[in-house]
């Protein structure tokens, strides 16, 4: 937009023409961002509603399933986010006080933390996929939370591929069926295992409650959406970092830092709730 300065007032060049002054712009932006945060709260509320409703009706399943998750990874991620929240808040202060070095450092740390968070999350996801703890229909774990191996489709696939059977895929398909039936709680699950195979206890026998898949649907839904927000946040902070290096911010014009920080805190708060709900209890 208008990059030609308002020389007369000595204002920051980033005040759009239709604002009376810097303060006016800042306050409008602030109101805007708060409203946006409200929409974010309501956006996430849908997932929380789903979580609460299913948890309320099936507490035992949630209590069981959360043991699949790594508390350590969750806790580290919580700390990472809290650190980044601190630096984000500090960045605002630095911008307000024209402390350029501090500002750049704080923003940089925030970005690093954001990526650290995402990295840890990615590792967790990779592990989940490896274990077969997918969402919904595909949920087919190869272990209980106590690491007892259980019968799962992936094992079949591996086994059969080794045996060089021709209809490997077809067989995997049919063996996936009993898995689905186990989910139905009909009990007569993977008894159809091919002869000559090492008999592992199936999911029901190993005590995995029916519909543990549900927990993972919610887990992936909630953390996934949260992850996307972290990713967006990271992008915004990189942009701020570049602008900070260019020296755009001043006590007259630090709105973007403040808005981004507010957003970031909200993302942090959501994680503060997700962490105990999913990992701990």
């Amino acid at each position, binding site marked *: 937009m208008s990059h030609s300065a308002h020389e007369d007032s000595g204002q920051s060049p980033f005040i759009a023409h239709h604002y009376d002054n810097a303060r006016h712009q800042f306050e409008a932006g602030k109101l805007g961002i708060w409203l946006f945060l409200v929409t974010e709260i309501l956006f996430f509320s849908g997932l929380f509603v789903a979580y609460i409703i299913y948890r309320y009706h099936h507490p035992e399943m949630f209590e069981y399933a959360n043991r699949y998750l790594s508390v350590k990874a969750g806790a580290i991620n919580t700390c990472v986010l809290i650190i980044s929240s601190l630096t984000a808040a500090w960045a605002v202060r630095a911008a307000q006080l024209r402390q350029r070095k501090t500002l750049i450092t704080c923003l940089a740390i925030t970005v690093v933390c954001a990526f650290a968070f995402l990295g840890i999350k990615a590792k967790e996801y990779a592990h989940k996929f490896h274990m077969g703890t997918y969402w919904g229909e595909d949920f087919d774990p190869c272990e209980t939370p106590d690491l007892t191996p259980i019968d799962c489709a992936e094992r079949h696939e591996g086994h059969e591929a080794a045996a060089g059977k021709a*209809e490997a895929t077809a067989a995997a398909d049919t063996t996936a069926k009993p898995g689905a039936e186990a989910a139905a709680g009909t009990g007569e699950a993977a008894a159809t295992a091919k002869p000559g195979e090492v008999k592992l206890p199936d999911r029901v026998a190993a005590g995995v409650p029916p519909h543990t898949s549900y927990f993972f649907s919610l887990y992936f839904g909630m953390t996934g959406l949260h992850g996307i927000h972290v990713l967006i946040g990271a992008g915004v902070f990189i942009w701020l970092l570049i602008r900070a290096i260019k020296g755009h911010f001043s006590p007259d014009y630090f709105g973007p830092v403040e808005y981004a920080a507010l957003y970031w805190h909200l993302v942090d708060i959501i994680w503060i709730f997700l962490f105990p709900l999913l990992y701990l209890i």
Partner: protein
Amino acid sequence: VVFIFVFGWQGYMHLKATPAHAHEIYVEAHQWKWGFRYENGYEDDVLHVPVNEPVRLVMKSSDVLHSFFVPAFRVKQDVIPGRYTDIWFEATEAGTYRLYCAEYCGTDHSQMKTFVKVHEAGGFEKYLDEGLAKMMNLPPVELGKLLYEKKGCKQCHSIDGSSGKGPTWKGIFGQTHTMTDGSQVLVDENYIRESILNSTAKVRSGFNPIMPVFQGKINDRGVQGLIAYIKSLK
């Protein structure tokens, strides 16, 4: 306004409070057909009820949402997959009334209609007993034909050789078909049984795996009847 609310609410509570001695009829809705099963086990695609006696419907859907709607009785209730919903009513006049599906359920939503037959006193029980007896004593081929019409096979399978949503039944017995995974399968008794009870296990190429699973909905005698019927279609 308060008055309207109270009025509406009372009417509603009346609808929800089922009398204790109501006849129970089990309703199953699927795309795009109604099925009714009576206390004695007889099944039909028309709803039969006695006059002046309360009837309670226990309803379930096997695919998407449907809604049981008889305008003449002012009753409506959605039918939901994975859950039972119920409703009751008492017909006060013998006769035949229209029954619709009021919740949008796909292509033939507007064709998902049938009738309610309200029997004179005594007629209801008699009809059920006779119906059951008839069904039990039918020779297999006849039974298969009946099921073909009443269980909804007719919607997808023709008996004249033309392909609909599913393959025709005419002359398939003994043929060899290619499945979507490329394998060849001979259409024999076993394959037909499997196709009926768990249709998606083997899907014939050129068709979509849309056929409902009939496991638990058609018993052994029924399956045999259907096999006999398919065999008979040369």
